[in-house]
């Protein structure tokens, strides 16, 4: 499990299999969707749908069991709010800070402070901003020797500073980064304070905080086979991706920002560093789950950044 609930609004597949077979399975997909009250459709020409999105670009969609008139549905879909300009992170972020214990968030009742980290010295203390965080990020941070406290997206910079962590993590999350102004401001205030590691939306927020801009990709990067080249080593890593917006390379070109990773399919920005400040962010998902594990080294780099940070 990567979060406490299904995040997608619906699931569309070409062919649904009710008869699962895996030693580790205990429920069918349909039962799981039902239990979460999420709609599923099968027997759709999903390839045709993909081609449609590829040619026309990502768009709003609607699925209905009530209205069967296509025109009425299209009209309704057009009235749905566009993802562009919409702050979805605040809708999915945690209300309270928590620690993840055995995949269950244990909420922190006391005020956020310096005392919350219990393994200082032994482990690197990390404050993780939740814009829609995947649990596997927390697991991998912990596996790399970190103690993680997840905080709401709107947590102000001075609160983070008061917590006195060794590093700050900016999580993935849905939607357009531009309207997440509060987070951008927070990040601006934290750059240079401690090493920061951002993934996906966290990376986009970092880009804006460093003076860049983001834009909407035609149909985004999706799937577990996206090739990314590390510009430092020139090595290619196969990555898991799911994003519709990207950082604009031009907008970052004059700053102290260094493009550390690019997407080999379309040459877009996949990662950045800062020449002065300890900042590391990637557009893709090094935590995989699902997807390939090629980029897990980034968690170690973050830890190493924290170890070498002298303020």
């Amino acid at each position, binding site marked *: 499990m990567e979060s406490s609930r299904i995040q997608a609004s619906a699931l569309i597949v*070409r*062919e649904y*299999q009710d*008869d*699962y*077979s*895996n*030693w*580790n*399975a205990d429920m069918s997909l349909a039962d799981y969707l039902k239990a979460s009250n999420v709609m599923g459709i099968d027997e759709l*020409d*999903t*390839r*045709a749908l*993909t*081609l449609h999105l*590829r040619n026309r670009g990502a768009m709003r969609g609607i699925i209905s069991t009530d209205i069967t008139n296509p025109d009425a549905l299209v009209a309704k879909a057009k009235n749905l709010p566009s993802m562009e300009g919409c702050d979805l992170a605040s809708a999915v972020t945690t209300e309270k800070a928590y620690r993840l214990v055995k995949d269950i968030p244990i909420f922190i009742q006391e005020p956020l402070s310096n005392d919350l980290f219990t393994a200082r010295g032994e482990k690197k203390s990390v404050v993780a901003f939740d814009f829609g965080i995947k649990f596997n990020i927390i697991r991998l941070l912990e596996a790399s020797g970190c103690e993680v406290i997840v905080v709401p997206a709107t947590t102000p910079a001075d609160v983070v500073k008061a917590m006195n962590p060794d590093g700050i993590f900016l999580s993935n999350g849905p939607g357009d980064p531009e309207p997440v102004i509060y987070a951008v401001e927070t990040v601006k205030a934290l750059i240079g304070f401690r090493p920061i590691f951002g993934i996906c939306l966290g990376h986009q927020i970092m880009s804006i905080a460093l003076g860049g801009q983001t834009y909407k990709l035609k149909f985004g990067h*999706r*799937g*577990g*086979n*996206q*090739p990314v*080249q590390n510009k430092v080593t*020139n*090595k*290619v890593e*196969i990555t898991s991706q799911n994003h519709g917006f990207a950082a604009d390379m031009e907008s970052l070109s004059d700053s102290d920002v260094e493009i550390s990773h690019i997407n*080999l*399919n379309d040459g877009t920005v996949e990662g950045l560093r800062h020449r002065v400040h300890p900042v590391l962010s990637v557009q893709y998902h090094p935590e*995989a*789950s*699902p*997807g*390939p*594990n090629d980029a897990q080294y980034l968690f170690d780099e973050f830890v190493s950044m924290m170890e070498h940070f002298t303020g």
Partner: protein
Amino acid sequence: MPKRTDIKKILIIGAGPIIISQACEFDYSGTQACKALREEGYEVVLVNSNPATIMTDPETADRTYIEPVTPEAVAKIIEKERPCAILPTLGGQTGLNTAIAVAEMGILEKYGVEMIGADVATIKKAEDRELFRDAMNKIGLNIPRSGFATNLDEVKQVSDEIGFPIIVRPSFTLGGTGGGVAYNPEELESFCKAGLEASLNTQVMLEQSVLGWKEYELEVVRDKADNVVIICSIENLDAMGVHTGDSITVAPAQTLSDKEYQQLRNASIAILREIGVETGGSNVQFAINPADGEMIVVEMNPRVSRSSALASKATGYPIAKIAAKLAVGYTLDELKNDITGETLAAFEPTLDYCVVKIPRWTFEKFPETEDYLTTAMKSVGETMSIGRTFTEALQKAVRSLEIGRFGLGSDGREVDNLSKTDIEHHLVTPNSHRLFYLRQAMKAGISLEAIHEMTKVDPWFLHQIKRICDMEERVRVAGKGIDADLLKRAKANGFSDVQIGVLTGTDEEWARKRRYELGIKPVYKLVDTCAAEFEAATPYYYSTYEEECEARVSDNKKVIILGGGPNRIGQGIEFDYCCVHASFALREEGVESIMVNSNPETVSTDYDTSDKLYFEPLTKEDVLHIVEKEKPFGVIVQFGGQTPLNLARELKAAGVPIIGTQPESIHRAEDRDEFQGMLKKLGLTQPESGIAMNYDEALIEARRIGYPVMVRPSYVLGGRAMRVVYSEGDLEGFIYEAMEASPGHPVLIDKFLEDAVELDVDAISDGKKTIIAGVMQHIEEAGIHSGDSACVLPPMSIANRLMDEIHDATRAMAKELGVVGLMNVQYAIKDNRLYIIEVNPRASRTVPFVSKATGIQFAKLATKVMLGKTLSEVGLETEFVPTHISVKEAVMPFDRFPHVDTLLGPEMKSTGEVMGISDDFGMAYAKAQIGSGDDLPTEGTVFISVKEGDKGQMLPTASLFKALGFTIMATSGTSDFLKKNGVANVLVNKVSVGRPHVVDAIKNNEIQLVINTPSGTSETTHDGYKIRRAALKYKVPFATTLTGAMAVARAIARLKEESFDVKALQDYFV
């Protein structure tokens, strides 16, 4: 990193003849590599003994050596060509082994040749069991626990370490004989006793049994910058215990969770790094315990393989081409993905469809061997199909198999009401029909749990087959009233019109009409490596039943080429060669070429061979759909062997424009009465013949014709159930066998022309003029299937008058049949008379051989002729008879089939062929023998044992061997005869007389060559059988015909004069 400029000339080693486990996938990979390297400006030198390959076309490489793929020959080529580098990873296991041997001979070092792709240390680390185990342990991976034992004490010791159940594998046996799975010490002892006895070096390997575990393969590509990508995951439907080449496989893997898949992916990458495969493609096999997900590594191949060919076709990612470019220094991010034309080769393909491969077996050719599947591969080919769902792909694959089936059951060809015991037996013991028994078991009400227990086939697959069964019932219940929704669902589950016809109590035509009335037609989707993420530049299609069709139909003049389907004995790579040439010719003529085929191993199904590729079953239904979509100018049916020919008449009747020789002419040559009428009209002679519907009629006919007679069923391929009958006593059994092979059809009885010389003639005609492409004289006498006989071009001993007659007869028949394109005639000459045995107005198996021997691409020219050009317009004015001698030799699969006799007969059994070229017959024949794997001795002892009637004719051969300094050894009858005729010899006991006997002598390495002609009976208890099997097992070359023995003697005579020389094909035609 850009390509290397310090190397200019690269030697590629091919895989040699088609054998079981090494089929035309290596022509596909080798051809891709040659093209890829030449595209980069490297000079490519190629060695391969197989003339039926595209890679040995003189245009494919710069320097082409059709020479034996042996260390000696390769050493000579290196000495002559001085390549900078050798690429050993594209020619299968043969290529790899040969390269290692050449390296160990010191040749590479001597001439400064670098091994690229994989070096010797890497190859050894992957291939040597101990080194591999150490390597795997080092990176924390497990392989099955195993150990060797040479006696029962050691067996005990090793088995204690492994734990039961244990797999016993005798080292160096034929076709995996003598092994088994032991569940307790008692069984272990019994298996080991048998295994030690069967093993050439008295050794057995004991291995932890992972039978029943799930089996997976990952195809991996790595470059020298250490970038690694997984091209494809493949899951075996058959659990561990059945060789992956004999398993039904599915891509991508279907029953793994993401976590499990990533575990395999990580392990594969770690393995490539640890083994040290610097660049190129590799294949890693895993077993997973279905109970708890435990993973072990089964093996890895540091080269392109059968599976990588499958993975390339399944994904569109050209592994061999990329591997070749990586070997010369490129990295993955520097190479383009040809399919999209935009993105790079550094990515992992995504499949939005399901691919199923089913192996093609030919157990019917080897009745002495039981139809069991084990860890030793027995299939001779495979078919692949693509569908949007597993059920669709599975049923399409079944109807691509060319076994007369139109889906998984309910196609009117199913044996019903099988007993439960029979079904269960076929479930428990893997066999070539097990897939059909899975369905039978469900029909018989056996629970899926029980079926899983018996087969270990994953429940997921069983549920899929259950879906097919359920759909079958729904269609049956609906009957003629079937509605659009159900019909479309049935089609989407892969049901053919034949099946729907059977299920609705109608027929294929009705089903088709009904479907069209309801507007249900297939759409075509693209194989694009990326699940529609990017636009695809290459049109590679498969059919399915969905909404959107992606076929881009042009207004160009276009021609559809129907391919040959899966390789099987009697129809192999030769026909794919012709189809590929047709495609090349169309391109040269500016005509759009469209290939239809279902064989993933071939060059014809490479995405850039034709302008368009439809990866589809070759059935009437599937072909008509494509024809309707594309509306071609013409369809070529004469190149793909029997598969498209069988469709020709139906296609024409449905209004499809067949170009070249018309189906009526093909029929006229096949129909007995029409054919006889034609010969009579032309004044040509056929051996006396008759037909019989039962034994009594056969008896009368045989008497009228006079013994010996050739008995054969009608309407079968490759000489199935064909026999020479010498006396009335033998007739009955063979007649019944022939009637069984083709029920309801007459048995054909022909006069057998004993000791006649047989000839194969290929010709090309434009409808007006006919030119002989090549006349080939068979080495073996009449009665041996032309596909199994060695032959020589030009012929050696045919009088001019008869050659003239052959030319006249060929021209007359071509004219009479209206041949436009290629034609093959088989003649026999007895007592200076010419007999017509058979005429096939289509491309024959020998077309590639003739083309290589003459340097003329006949299949290409024939294609242009079919488009309407005359022979002179395509530049062919007269017959060309080369001055050099070319010999073709067949390669037999006997070592794969326990208990099978090694005799040649009228039923074809060979899987492939090799070619030997030289300036004289002896040397050309010697090269062909060496190429086929026979190490001809130049000294030692020749054992001779021939049947009574052969003794006189054997004398010159025996004398020649004597003159060559060989010791002659013989059993009593032959020995006496030889002595009487002045040939000194050593007497040895027959097996039936007592020990030490001839088989002991073979085992003791006292015999270097065996000449043994059959005595007529096929008893496996017979001495001759034991001698031949012993020779096979101990790899002693043997001849089973007198003419073959004489040819061997002449070859050895030449080898004693000088060792063979190597010469590039390009130098024969300067």
